[in-house]
């Protein structure tokens, strides 16, 4: 359940930045290849924000899909998981998106 530690990091950073102002919503970007489960994060968000300036805030999760670029044939394609195999058969694949784990913004005041 690393989502608890991840969500705690989000809430700590947001509350620090809010500097006492009430937080109404938080937007995070969680790539499809990050091993972070959005539903688990939502569950943890309610627990972690309790008693903080972000209590009751809405959590919005943007989830970019996984994509990769084949270094052999240069084709870009969607990655459903971390198994790096291009349709051409090459396993020499660079991940180009899906590993984002960022706090994007928040609404305060």
């Amino acid at each position, binding site marked *: 359940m690393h989502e608890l530690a991840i969500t705690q*990091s989000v809430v700590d950073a947001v509350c620090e930045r809010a500097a006492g102002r009430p937080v109404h919503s938080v937007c995070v970007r969680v790539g499809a290849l*990050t091993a972070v489960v959005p539903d688990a994060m939502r569950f943890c968000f309610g627990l972690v924000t309790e008693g903080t300036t972000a209590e009751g805030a809405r959590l919005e999760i943007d989830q970019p899909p996984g994509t990769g670029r084949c270094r052999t044939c240069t084709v870009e394609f969607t990655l459903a*998981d971390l198994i790096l195999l291009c349709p051409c058969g090459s396993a020499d694949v660079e991940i180009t998106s899906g590993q984002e784990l960022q706090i994007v913004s928040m609404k305060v*005041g």
Partner: protein
Amino acid sequence: MCATCGCSEESGGTRIVMLREDDAPDHPHPHPHPHPHPHPHPHERAQANGTGETVTIEQKVLAKNNLVAEVNRTWLTDRGVAAVNMMSSPGAGKTTLLERTITDLGGRRPVAVIEGDQETRLDADRIRSTGCAVVQVNTGAGCHLDAEMMQNALTALSPAAGSLLMVENVGNLVCPALFDLGERSKVVIISVTEGTDKPLKYPYMFAAADLILINKADLLPYVDFDVEQCARHARSVNPAVRVLTVSATTGEGLDQWYDWLAEQQ
């Protein structure tokens, strides 16, 4: 007799126990916590927006952990300490492998150990019986070590310059993969009593590995485990990863493991 370092008191439910009195720092002890200032303030701008302000943050979620990990990495590098983060599911044989490794290295190079577990100091006691300096980190409800726990453990342990620092992470094939501790390299251990398909089922962990050890090779005649297929699965998520087959019980393959450790300077 053990001494409990007070460092853990500010770290939630984490407890850090030093098992070797000689190595336990006196209290109060000077904390080499560099107290990093982990507050990146990138691209912050506020926009007036009717019902409130929208503050753009664009900050990595793990920024704080990663900053502390970088402080740890610098601290270790400055002292010539090579830290190896050992990860696996529970029961893959990490502690047995560590015991054998410490014994076989036989003082050729100083070794220190950070033991991570949710509860108990059972593993740390086993390591301590080899004569090795060891600190136990109990994470309580936590399912992985993080950079701050590593920092507090380093303070308690104070590994000797030039030593090899083995970090036994909490037994878990998911969460530890996400948290940089400031280690030099990551080792994932899988035992032949687990499934050949483990690298496909837990790809994040195997993708993070610098080395994969397939342990308990002495049991291969008795179990349905395909070493070559497991290595192929591992390379499907981590094409360049090195894979060694070993037995911490019989010693099979351990010379290659020791050669790899010797390269971690």
